[in-house]
């Protein structure tokens, strides 16, 4: 297939699906079908894109035919395409899960269109090669995710959504300011060109100072310490399908953006931005997140705080900034998205069968639903880094990278946090899956009816089992996954391929101004 088509389909498919789904507002089944086709389509296209990158290297597409850096380019490198694929997997899983999980009213009021528009924003963020365009996709994500959180209008949802949207607007403000400052300094918004120009800014301290705006803005998006408040305030409020979709993807878009700008654009003073700032932030994020989780007694709140904690690991990889550490970060993202989304999906089934999300009310799921118990244990222990599951490999790479780089402190933190993660995951196991204790609250809970298994619940098992299967695959085939992450890390470590793919061959490397000068000298109108 044509490369350009592969690059724009991840945007076109969900946009078209959203419009179509809106047209079929009153026919839920058709909407669900459109959604499933759209998500599967994105997955297929992303896999095609990976095959193309494997053969031909980084792909770029100049929108409207305007050459970089003057128009907006879409770029797909390994990192982008890995993010696309993993997101699409979650998209497909949630598309199936949503059919029984999302009630008719929510469907009537646009669940499926909003889910597709959120996917549009996510895919746009992964593919764009333009800093301001990234901002636009962030806005698409923000507004559609806001509506998805609020959809249903329960009190909890509204309370969570207000915090979610207000804090994220602060993030947008900083992002926009940062983009403006970058443009004011470098005169371009094309990220490939910025990679060249920002290094030539005489006052290099200025670039680093500006980079702090991105640290804060993306830090809010990625839910880093001490900016994560919106996440635990909102993720436990919408239906499980929505939380799972968010938990898998939203913060990871923030992490993606962070990795993108702190490998491509802001590498002027690694010692400050990465080794100092990001390293501290990573450590504190891991610790505060995991402690937050330990204090919770709600299935999804425990999971929410763990997202925060886990983001710390990904940022740790970026902070260490060796090729191996970047491999670790990418591996971690791949592993984490699958596992975390799956745990939220499991929580939804637990709620359906056990009648609650509260760990004080849930109990004994193992005795009645051993299948669900196993499907919980796989992602839960993987999250805790239990070998040989995927999380173990991700943490192992990071720990090894840290030790090789002499960053013993962060490695010690990362390993210790692993123990506390184990604590929380086994806490869920003991409270929700094993029989209840003699808790005085327990007596009244017998009143909450144990709900029977329905066709819908069975259908919810399908994506959970599939994602657990993928986790097992990542664990067993950790070698090939490592190789894929390595290819991505190589591109991130050396951005010349990215720059060349966007700006073209001859004129790029030495002097980004050459092309415009040539145009001027020839005096004529150059067909773009």
């Amino acid at each position, binding site marked *: 297939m044509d490369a350009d088509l592969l690059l724009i389909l991840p945007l076109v498919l969900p946009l078209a699906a959203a419009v179509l789904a809106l047209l079929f507002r009153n026919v839920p089944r058709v909407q669900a079908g459109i959604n499933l086709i759209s998500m599967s389509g994105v997955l297929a296209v992303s896999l095609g894109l990976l095959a193309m990158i494997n053969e031909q290297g980084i792909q770029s597409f100049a929108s409207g035919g305007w050459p970089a850096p003057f128009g907006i380019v879409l770029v797909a490198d390994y990192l982008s395409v890995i993010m696309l694929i993993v997101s699409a997997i979650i998209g497909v899983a949630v598309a199936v899960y949503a059919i029984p999980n999302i009630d008719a009213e929510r469907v009537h009021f646009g669940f499926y269109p909003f889910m597709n528009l959120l996917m549009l924003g996510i895919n746009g963020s992964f593919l764009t090669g333009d800093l301001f365009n990234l901002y636009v996709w962030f806005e698409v994500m923000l507004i559609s995710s806001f509506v998805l959180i609020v959809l249903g209008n329960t*009190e909890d949802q509204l309370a969570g959504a207000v915090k979610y949207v207000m804090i994220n607007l602060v993030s947008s403000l900083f992002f926009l300011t940062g983009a403006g400052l970058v443009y004011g300094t470098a005169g371009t918004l094309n990220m490939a060109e910025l990679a060249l120009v920002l290094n030539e800014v005489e006052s290099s301290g200025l670039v680093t100072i500006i980079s702090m705006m991105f640290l804060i803005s993306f830090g809010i998006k990625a839910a880093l310490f*001490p900016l994560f408040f919106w996440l635990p305030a909102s993720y436990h409020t919408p239906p499980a399908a929505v939380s799972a979709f968010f938990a898998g993807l939203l913060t990871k878009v923030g992490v993606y953006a962070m990795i993108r700008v702190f490998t491509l654009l802001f590498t002027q003073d690694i010692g400050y931005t990465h080794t100092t700032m990001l390293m501290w932030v990573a450590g504190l994020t891991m610790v505060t997140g995991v*402690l937050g989780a330990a204090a919770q007694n709600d299935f999804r709140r425990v999971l929410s705080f763990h997202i925060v904690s886990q983001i710390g690991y990904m940022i740790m990889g970026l902070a260490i900034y060796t090729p191996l550490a970047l491999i670790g970060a990418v591996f971690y993202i791949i592993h984490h998205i699958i596992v975390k989304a799956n745990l939220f999906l499991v929580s939804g089934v637990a709620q359906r069968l056990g009648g609650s999300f509260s760990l004080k009310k849930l109990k004994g799921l193992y005795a009645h639903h051993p299948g669900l118990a196993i499907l919980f244990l796989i992602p839960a222990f993987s999250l805790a880094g239990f070998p040989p599951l995927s999380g173990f490999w991700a943490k192992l790479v990071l*720990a090894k990278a840290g030790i090789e780089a002499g960053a013993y402190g962060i490695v010690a933190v990362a390993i210790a946090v692993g123990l506390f993660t184990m604590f929380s995951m*086994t806490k869920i196991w*003991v409270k929700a899956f094993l029989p209840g204790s003699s808790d005085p609250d327990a007596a009244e809970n017998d009143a909450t009816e144990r709900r029977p298994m329905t066709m819908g619940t069975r259908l919810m098992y399908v994506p959970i089992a599939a994602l657990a299967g993928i986790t097992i695959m990542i664990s067993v085939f950790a070698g090939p996954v490592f190789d894929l992450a390595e290819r991505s890390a190589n591109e991130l470590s050396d951005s010349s391929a990215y720059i060349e793919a966007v700006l073209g061959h001859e004129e790029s490397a030495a002097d980004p101004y050459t092309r415009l000068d040539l145009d001027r000298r020839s005096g004529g109108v150059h067909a773009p």
Partner: protein
Amino acid sequence: MGIVLAVFAGFALALVAPWITGATGRATGWLYSLVPAGITAYLSTFIAPVAAGETMRVAYAWVPGLNVDLSFYVDGLSLFFALLITGIGTLIFIYAGAYLKGHHHLGRFFAYLSMFMAAMVGLVLADNLFTFYIFFELTSFASFVLIGFNHDEAASRRAAWQALLITKAGGLALLAGFLLMEQATGTLQISAILETGEAIRDHGFYTAIVLLVLAGAFTKSAQFPFYFWLPNAMQAPTPVSAYLHSATMVKAGIYVMARFHPVLSGTDLWFWLVGGIGAFTMVLSAWLALQYTDLKGILAYTTIMALGALTMLLGLGTETALKACLVFVLVHAFYKAALFMVAGAIDHGVHERDITKLGGLRSKMPITFGAAVIACLSMAGIPLFFGFIGKEIIYEATLHLDQAALFFTGAALLANVALVASAGLLAIRPFMGPLNDLTSHAHRPDTGLWFGAAVLAVLSLGLGLAPWLLDSAILAPSLSALMGAEATPHLAIWHGFNLPLALSGVTVALGVGTYFAWTPMRQSAPFRALERWLGTGLDNGYDHAINGLLATATAQTNFLQNGYLRRYIATILGTTVAVVGYTFGHFGFEGPVLSFVGIAPYEWILSLLIVGGALATLFLSARIALVAALGISGFSIALTYLMYGAPDLAMTQFLIETLTVILFVLILAALPTLSEVASIGHRLRDGVLAVATGSMFTALMLAVLNQPFENRMGEYYMQYSYSEAQGRNIVNTILVDFRALDTLGEITVLLIAGFGIYTLLRLKRSKTSEKVEASRASEQVEQLS
């Protein structure tokens, strides 16, 4: 390939066991025992080549990028442990089939049990540090599910969770130790690491490696102060206690120390830490055992005693000590597994394990009784039994130390005296004397319940009579591997009249004395205090640690995630100012020279209006006035756009400001007046934060404006706007052509926002946003609870 099969056969059985157990019925235990028996038989074929000095290695690449192989290595030491695991495993499988006969989760039980066995075999055969670690943790997981097998009981759940957390903590330390070991030696291959000689001892990481590896070994093998999980783990069904928590899994820590003994030992640090902690654990737990009347309680603490003794011997590190270690592994496995099976048979038949309530069972279960007596004689170290050989070499090892011989001999003596007393309790109390109300109803155990104990008793007796059978086939290759040098050990039943023999005599005499003084001693104050502090005391300490951690976590979370949006925003802004300010401080601020000359009066007026509007918000309390004040700032800013040549922008800003003011007024009109007005201190704090944030933006702006700016984009757009994009209005061509993708995104945002508002208004209209405050409060409450 065969070795891989030997490891994975157990995993395969684990996968199928839950599904086929329904069909196997009463024969389950015997049938499944064919798997460990088969592996034992296969591994036995390695005995001859290994004894001849060969080693075998197979490796399959797993994660080449990390040098992780699925590799296995058969040498004397790994074969020694592997045979022990599968051999004892065979007997345990038979026993478990009888013990849990008819249990409705028998299949699940065997799945866990064979998964454990496979993990354990994998652990001892693994030849890659990380593969080793993976199996190490899998044994912890198996232990977790097996201890918690009777999860209807709260004590079981707690014990399982505790064991998992303690061993997992140690496991993580071990992983860190392995990572450092890789750095020090440059390889992950264990057999290669063993060849590196002084590389680790000479490396700067040596101390860290030793401490981390020992943390893993000590937690797993229940050394002081981590041992408290092991007595709790006795909540597991007895086959599990016998297999995991006595004969094999707890030896994983011993195996770690033994495996890396050639490259880690030989320093004062190793000698005193391993030897000292081992000796202390040995003595302490031997005497703690006498505080319990529960059969499994006594067995648990005497197991810890054995683990302490093994650890001590590995710390001492002389050839005799290492030989003693290997012999004692076997001695202990044989008598302890037998005694656990006996205890389980009694529990099964009488439903009681308290030795003060049992009695007279010799007539009810004669074979079990016979096995118990032999095992206890071996445990007490009586001549002609295997335990005697073990004890003699331990004394020989401690007596011949270059340093601290007296100390370690004394410790061994002290521990062995208590062990003799325990052996007496275990052999005599349940079986001798008259039958009582409880025991007279005991039913005869099935064959499966006594078979394993009988086999092990025969071994304890046979090897006591003919210990030299072990010399060249088993002991020599394993001792050579343990020492990292050639060894030709010899075991003999008679060494002549010497000091160890005299010590054995003293031990038995004192032990018998202790036995008769047991009841008053157990109830005496010092012994009760010992139990209170170091028995249940450490266990309670664990609870305190967990509760303290949870309290800290809750306090931190309530502080950070406090439920108030305004605090969140303030924290974020404060963080931003701090980070950007710090960065400015780090790199310095280079801005243009500020001059207030030549500013037109209208510019002054506009500036004052902007600032004034913002300032006014600090002091106004009526909502409408607040909106008006913000409006003044907003319109003034729009005016500046107009003056500096951006009419499009100004127009947009005017529209937005107007709309905002109108909407605000409409909404606020429907709300009550502000009931709670922020205090002066509050406003001052907010004001300072606002000024700081504004200053930060100003500083950023000035720093950027100080840079030369090349308007290439603008030039390009001007050049091509008409000719290529077919439009004279450059702003328009940028929006709909040059950067059309942005516009697509933005109109999508508008679409979503519009539809979202529609949704908010239409869906479940009953719930209105006034309840947001109430809900925030509920979030608070939920966190606190």
